[in-house]
């Protein structure tokens, strides 16, 4: 039996803004299994980034239960959570967030610094990772000497150098033109397929979302649909998916709010059978 990489049960997140509380997430349940490819879509302000921050242990939920890599976030201290992030999660941001004045290889090696890996080994692993994202010839370039697409590939290498279980990418192509964005997307998909790292990617682009096997639609801080598609790339990742189901789409877990939400439980069971080889045993 495989363990879910991330498990969220009725997770909510409320911000206090000048005494007014803003609910960015209002009770979200989902499970990210190992090796999955999940697209998260939804309008601006719907809570996608908030969800990613929670799933990555960068933020703590205001309510509900969140288990990352088998560990309940609520029971962890700040340093423990930092170590968990380091070991389990890789982040890719829309804005790259590379350290300026720092070479590509040192940027990629950064997570290994906090893991206590020695300098020589760090560089070797970072250089190898840069090779895998096609930047073996750009090891000593600084971010301002790299194109946007190259910078994002450095960021991807940094996210994967620790061999995390989950790669969380929040609009990774948002700052790139379509051709460059497509290349980055293909790289992410290839790494997902090759290394078995689960890929959770926020996107605004329906076509991009359609390439993912599983699509989660978020609206107003709630999951409106969570569907699995046998044939990735099929149309109909429309939102909410439940209103316009694609022929092959199956609802993965309970979605929507209010009455009739069948289950807030982890990793909805419906339609899971035979979906993913390793997920089959985990569900149900």
């Amino acid at each position, binding site marked *: 039996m495989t363990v879910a990489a991330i498990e969220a049960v009725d997770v909510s997140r409320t911000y206090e803004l000048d005494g007014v509380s803003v609910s960015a997430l209002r009770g979200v349940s989902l499970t990210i299994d190992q090796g999955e490819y999940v697209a998260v879509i939804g309008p601006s302000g719907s809570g996608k980034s908030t969800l990613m921050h929670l799933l990555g242990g960068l933020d703590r939920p205001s309510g509900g239960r969140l288990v990352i890599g088998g560990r309940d976030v609520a029971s962890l201290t700040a*340093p423990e959570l930092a*170590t968990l*992030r380091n070991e389990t999660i890789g982040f890719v941001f829309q804005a790259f967030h590379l350290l300026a004045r720092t070479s590509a290889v040192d940027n990629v090696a*950064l997570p290994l610094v906090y893991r206590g890996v020695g300098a020589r080994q760090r560089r070797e692993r970072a250089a190898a990772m840069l090779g895998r994202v096609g930047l073996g010839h750009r090891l000593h370039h600084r971010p301002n000497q790299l194109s946007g697409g190259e910078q994002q590939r450095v960021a991807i290498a940094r996210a994967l150098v620790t061999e995390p279980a989950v790669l969380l990418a929040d609009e990774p192509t948002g700052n790139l033109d379509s051709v460059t964005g497509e290349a980055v997307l293909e790289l992410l998909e290839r790494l997902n397929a090759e290394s078995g790292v689960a890929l959770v990617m926020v996107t605004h682009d329906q076509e991009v979302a359609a390439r993912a096997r599983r699509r989660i639609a978020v609206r107003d801080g709630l999951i409106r649909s969570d569907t699995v598609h046998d044939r990735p790339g099929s149309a109909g990742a429309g939102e909410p998916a439940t209103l316009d189901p694609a022929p092959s789409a199956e609802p993965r877990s309970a979605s929507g709010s209010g009455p009739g939400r069948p289950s807030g439980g982890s990793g909805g069971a419906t339609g899971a059978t035979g979906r993913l080889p390793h997920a089959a045993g985990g569900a149900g």
Partner: protein
Amino acid sequence: MRVAEAWRVALDALRANRMRSVLTMLGVIIGVASVVILVAIGTGTKQQVEQQVEGLGSNLLLVVPGKIEVGTAPVVSPLDLKDVDAVSRVVGDPSRVAVTVASGATARAGNRSDFTTVQGVLETTPSVFTRSLQRGRYLTGADVDTSRRVAVLGASVARALFPDRDPLGQQVTLAGVRFRVIGVFAPLGQSLGVDRDDEVHVPVTAAQRLWGTQRIDGIAVKAPDRERIDQLGERIVAELSRRHPDTEFSAVTQQQILGVLGDILGVLTGVLAAIAGISLLVGGVGVSNIMLVSVRERTREIGLRKAVGARPRDIGVQFLLEAVLLTSIGGLTGMALGVGTALLVDAFSPIPAAITWWSLALAFGVSAAVGIVFGVVPAQRAGRLDPVVALRAE
């Protein structure tokens, strides 16, 4: 994160903002350098004065009217030469007793003039105080007995009045009266900024006549042995008090003078060091300020580091090391600057300066401590930043 790594990151951060780092360090550099320089000057002066007091001659006892205390006004002396005879009888040896009656006067020779101190003295002065001549001879008993108008010039006075002539045998006019130069003192140098060669010795009798007085300002006695010097002082004071019941007299030894001077100069050095310490503190505030700016500027970097697994402590240590590195490098530079300046001052100016190891250790220790104290708040702030908020920072 390993400590070596944290050092490297901190050093990189300082290098990235080279100009700002240097300017921030400047506060610490100036602070540390001034501590080192001022303490060196204080110490050097103290050593020099002590040497000079010791050089006055051993077993010296100074007898003056009034109390010898800081802050007491000088008393008009009731002493005259008859009292000196009485003191000589107490001592038992007139050659161990010296006197002075001193006043400022203008010395002239030809068309040159120099304002100086004229001292009326006995012929015993060179043996009571250790004084040696460069040229000519000193006053004799006969000179004193006959109020002969002869003078021995201090090195500065000789240089001022006779820059290109041999002063021996020449005439000088002191307060309008002509004297003949019979000798020139070997130079003594400066003490606490006072030129000790700026004086003219004449027979005490001639001086008294010059100013129309019978007064003696003070008596100095070279005690026959060190053990009974205090006892001798008490006997002299008792004798003078008997002769002048209305006046209080004090006898101080060289040791007491050394002690008082040492105390005064010690306090002075301490005050100087404290003033310099304040500038070090101001430098520390500058470091704190820049560290806060640095944390704000690098908020996104902090967010990113946390996202990839930096613990709050890792971030805190990184910024603390940066502050400590700033002040330590500043401290070392300031020490080098301070030592260099102090050596130059000592070599090329009349101000003495002596480097002490404790001032170096103190200055460096304080500058490193300043880095810790003033780096803690910015470092804690950086460590506690919420990563999500930090990543969103502009």
